[in-house]
């Protein structure tokens, strides 16, 4: 526990607003997810030393950065906590190379040239090194900010909604870089976001924050499969995360075939090699249920599942958690969970009681391309 990349337990009160957050982050990417105003940014600012908690403890890699009882409050410059903010915060009077090198003196002199070259290469900044921030595109600015934080040799990297100010095209330009960060530099990342597709794509561990408190904490797949958390993960956006491997590409129809516990799953074509693990999010509202596999339908994915849990709200909806068991041919593996949102009427008509076998119908086109990514290397590291 003391050597965990991050352990923090802090409290802060400012008028009506209060924070009471306890969280741990392992290697790889930990996402802090919550609505705007939930206190995510305040939590990371406390971690960086820019806001002082009223009381609590913050430890990074076993070193105490803050301890109200012991009277420890390390200055930001000594914490070794790298930050990428929502706005890139590049120094306007310095060019890209000078911005990148600003924190480089924390890297040992012998490694500076190598590390610099590696970061410039990873982030594709070679062509803009001489330019001033004013002459950069939004994506280039944010890539420079990421590179600058990496080059300060942080023990942990905080990313506070780094993509929030970018349009969709810029987001998909930067996401692959962020995906590789944690693995390529072996630095644990705390990623703040209110966009679930980013979380699903990047994070291994999910921390749900609401009204200044940590409401849940655990592997992304587990938390997103829990019906009781859908109010926090966003009811409209609610959906479970599935892990699958690439089984093949059907180029003539531009689809990719995935193997999920032996079940076949079609998605829009993705550029991943065979056998690669992917994580995909299937929104509950994109899943329909049937008692028998329908014929003559456009829905490609029909997966046998059993009802695990049903939650009836006050509205016309019923949220259903479904277990996907591995096919006998697949060998032993842990069951996965799919969420479905159906009407209360269907729930009654189909008799969706716990343990009932049904078919989950998932439209391939409904699988969000942006939430479909190769599992971050950080996740692989976690598992090995």
């Amino acid at each position: 526990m003391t050597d965990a990349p991050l352990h923090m337990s802090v409290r802060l009160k400012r008028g009506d607003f209060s924070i009471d957050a306890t969280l741990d982050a392992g290697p790889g990417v930990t996402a802090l997810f919550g609505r705007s105003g939930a206190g995510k940014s305040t939590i990371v600012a406390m971690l960086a030393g820019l806001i002082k908690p009223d009381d609590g403890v913050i430890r990074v890699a076993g070193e105490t950065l803050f301890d109200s009882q012991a009277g420890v409050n390390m200055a930001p410059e000594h914490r070794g906590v790298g930050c990428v903010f929502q706005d890139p915060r590049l120094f306007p009077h310095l060019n890209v190379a000078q911005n990148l090198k600003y924190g480089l003196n924390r890297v040992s002199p012998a490694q500076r040239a190598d590390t610099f070259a590696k970061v410039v290469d990873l982030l594709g900044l070679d062509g803009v090194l001489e330019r001033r921030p004013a002459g950069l595109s939004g994506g280039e600015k944010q890539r420079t900010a990421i590179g600058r934080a990496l080059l300060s040799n942080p023990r942990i990297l905080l990313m506070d909604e780094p993509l929030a100010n970018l349009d969709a095209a810029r987001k998909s330009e930067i996401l692959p870089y962020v995906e590789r960060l944690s693995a390529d530099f072996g630095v644990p990342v705390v990623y703040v976001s209110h966009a679930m597709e980013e979380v699903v794509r990047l994070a291994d561990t999910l921390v749900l924050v609401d009204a200044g408190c940590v409401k849940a904490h655990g592997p992304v797949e587990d938390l997103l499969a829990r019906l009781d958390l859908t109010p926090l993960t966003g009811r409209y956006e609610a959906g479970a995360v599935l892990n699958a491997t690439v089984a093949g590409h059907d180029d003539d129809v531009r689809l990719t075939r995935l193997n999920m516990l032996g079940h076949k799953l079609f998605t829009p074509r993705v550029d991943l090699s065979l056998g690669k693990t992917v994580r995909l999010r299937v929104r509950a509202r994109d899943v329909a249920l049937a008692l028998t596999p329908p014929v003559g339908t456009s829905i490609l994915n029909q997966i046998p599942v059993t009802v695990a849990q049903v939650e009836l709200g006050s509205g016309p909806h019923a949220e259903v958690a479904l277990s996907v068991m591995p096919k006998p041919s697949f060998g032993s593996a842990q069951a996965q969970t799919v969420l479905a949102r159906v009407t209360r009427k269907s729930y009654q008509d189909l008799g969706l009681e716990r343990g009932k076998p049904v078919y989950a119908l998932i439209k391939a086109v409904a699988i969000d391309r942006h939430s479909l990514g190769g599992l971050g290397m950080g996740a692989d590291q976690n598992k090995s």
Partner: protein
Amino acid sequence: MMDFLSPQEWAALGLSLKVSLWATLGSLPLGVGMAWILARRQFFGHGLVNAAVHLPLVLPPVVIGYGLLVLLGRGGVLGGWLYDVFGITLVFTWKGAAIAAAVMAFPLMVRAMRLSLEAVDRGLEDAARTLGAKPIKVFVTITLPLMLPGVVTGGVLAFARALGEFGATITFVSNIPGQTRTLPLALYTLTQSPGGEAGAARLAVLAVIVAVTALMMSELLARRVKAKAEGHIHD
């Protein structure tokens, strides 16, 4: 060209430039420090310090001159000590004139610097801290370069104000030709002496030329510094 002014008038112009230059350069670091304290620090008595800095702007200059005389005169608290320990005399010397000019120009200088310092995004300073820079490095490498346009503007305003300084100067260091008779004092003297009208007119024109030149140069300089700070000029 040299005949345009009499030797005394040349002396007055030279003295004015010297006094104003030293007044400006000498108070520049203090101005930056004071601007930083007022813009970035919260402390008990903040309002009082702010008021004290602005006092020369609202008080009759003669009062400031008198205050300086009491404080820095040979018999004054500070003046006596300066003379005893360092042998420095300020009264009736150009150095005293520079101090009077500096004090009178200080509020203008601090105002300009504070405005530009407040426009510097504190997020940039935070970012620099998280990159491992100590506060002093943050100030030197981030804050100061970004507030530089305000430093230049403040410096030029102070210089212009120092050139025109009259009341505090004449009260503190009197009106001694070659020592403390700056351009405004020389002009005043000429208006008081019979037959001095032509000289007074020449000095008035000269004052206008010097002031306009200074302002134009500062405008050019400020624009260049600003463009550089914002990253529009490659270096």
